[in-house]
């Protein structure tokens, strides 16, 4: 869980990472929510809102849209008047983040057509390749073993997994 209290204190690392004009990168968050909130509210109002006495399906989303607009507006105002520290810096191996996401993306793409065994072998091999420093034969071996053991284990639990073109 993210640390709660005093979580947005200025840290030495994050101080100084600002946009031109001294505005913190944090301003992106309320701006984005404001735009999305506006689109959401327009969408909410396109449904029947009804009245307070006879509420329809658009009423609650309309309230939520107003909450989003007001809260993000206040947040934006606070950011402009009292800029908060920017985001935490990226870690030294930040490139692993897109690499892991891409690996999961490949798994999602392969899962139905290629089946669980092939998709999970590819996913495990990619993850171990990106996350560690192992020889290629070890990566392939671990990936194959992990896929096979997990396939057996999940089958034992009764989890339905797509077989793909393989006969098992």
């Amino acid at each position, binding site marked *: *869980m*993210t*640390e*709660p*209290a005093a979580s*947005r204190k200025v840290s030495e690392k994050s101080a100084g990472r600002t946009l031109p004009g001294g505005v913190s990168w944090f301003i992106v968050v*309320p701006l984005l*929510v404001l735009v999305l*909130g506006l689109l*959401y509210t327009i969408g*909410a109002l396109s449904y029947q809102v009804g009245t*307070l*006495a*006879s*509420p*329809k*399906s*658009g*009423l*609650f*989303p309309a309230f*939520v849209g107003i909450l*989003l607009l*007001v*809260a*993000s507006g206040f*947040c934006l105002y*606070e950011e402009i008047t009292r800029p908060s520290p920017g*985001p*935490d810096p*990226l*870690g*030294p*191996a930040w490139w*692993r*983040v897109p690499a*892991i*996401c891409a690996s*999961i993306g490949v*798994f*999602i793409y392969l*899962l*139905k057509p290629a089946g*669980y065994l092939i998709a*999970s072998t590819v*996913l*495990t091999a990619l*993850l*171990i390749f990106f*996350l*560690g420093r*192992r020889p290629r034969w070890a990566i392939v071996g*671990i990936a194959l073993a*992990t896929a096979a053991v997990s396939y057996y284990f*999940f089958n034992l*639990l*009764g*989890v339905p*997994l*797509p077989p793909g073109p393989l006969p098992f």
Partner: protein
Amino acid sequence: MESFTGLLNGFAFLLSPNNLIALVAGVFLGTVVGVLPGLGPIGAMAILLPISFQMEATAALILMAGIFYGAQYGGSTTSILMNIPGESTSVVTCIEGYQMTKRGRAGAALTVSAVGSFIAGTIAVVLLMIFAPILGQFALRFGAAEYFALTAFGLMVLSRLTGGGLAIAFMIVGIGLALKTVGQEMMYGIARFSFGSIDLWQGLELTPVVVGLFGIAEVLISAEEKESTSQISSVRLRELLPTRREWGRSIGPILRGTAVGFPFGLIPGPAAILSTFASYALEKRVSKHPEEFGKGAIEGVAGPESANNAAAGGTLVPLLSLGIPFAPPTALLLGAFIIHGVQPGPLLMSEHPEVFWGLVASMYAGNVMLLILNLPMIGLFVSILRLPRDLLLAFIVLVSVVGVYSVNNSVFDLMVMLAMSLVGYAMRKFRLSAATLVLPLVIGTLMEESLIRTLMLARGDMGYLLSRPIALCLLVIGAASLIAPVAWRRFCQRKTKREQGAAR
């Protein structure tokens, strides 16, 4: 007497092989995820939530609850031995626990922490047994207005307690509620924000959102850091026994930690974390040796470790009696209840006694099991930290994706999980609380339905809410939690200015 009979029946349910296996697996896994820095009980519960779908309801809930309170035990191990909190609830334990390790008293710190957790956990279950039925009876008087007020109260208090600014918290609450409105709504059956997609028409499932926000996001945060080279201290079995003086100094803090922790569990928000800070501050204030704080005072380990376990028990009270989770782990437990078609709330004890009493009995047994597991097996748990990180993270990702897919056999859920993992990663980078996003997602539907019903009953008169005493009380307390800290700060500022003016 009724409770005693119920508890005996609960133990009878617990003795079935499936439930016993679920209990052992739950508390063991809980301890493991507690030990591992990065992966917390929320992530682990989120990952296992879909897999628990294949189990019986009682066994699944015993497993999930075991992970939840087991993690509170395990979290202290790395805090004490390595100065790295295995859990966010063990951050405070690092302060005194690691100092004790440096003084060669790691074993005593671990034992006091485990015994304190056991005592607090057991007392919390007794209190849960007392308070959950009382609150459940009280909740039978709840109508739509009261449920709306309760959900609004929950979100207001959560916004105040999760730190950061109020505007930010409300913004995240708004995002959570907005996500919950995607899909077909229950009152009129109209699909909202589905853009013609059948997947979106069904709405966003809790599981992929939570696995993405907590499970995969944890992996991403962990993966971008270089592998830690921290020295892992080992503890021999014979070094585990505290001295008589250490025991004497720990009993008071354990009981006070329990007394502080349990009520914290009843409040929406990160109760367990806040309770540890409160307990530490209390111990420092009442200690006869305040000069030892920061240098390895055992009270600073005993109090907070008891508080977080008591708070974990406390968080189950609103879930079991009202059906409303006030903390992210209990939101996941609610998910497990719903997956198995069991609705927690005032009628849980009468409609599903085997689930309620089975869960309570499992918590008694689980606490004993954790005490037995934790101390002799400390070496094993520490050795988990030596597992190669690439294999561990790859395993977590694999279990997560299979788990999410298995709920609905849906590739769309996997896409939601991936998208939410990026959202969770970004939220962490911006130091925003992902937990604040989960609660509105869980209670959003109840909030909308109770609001619409209230408005229909009152024919649009919002004054109706204020004419209902329970609803009024909840709304006033919620509003006070938002306004009071600001008013108090202003009052203090004015007072200081006045005093400065008088001094001149």
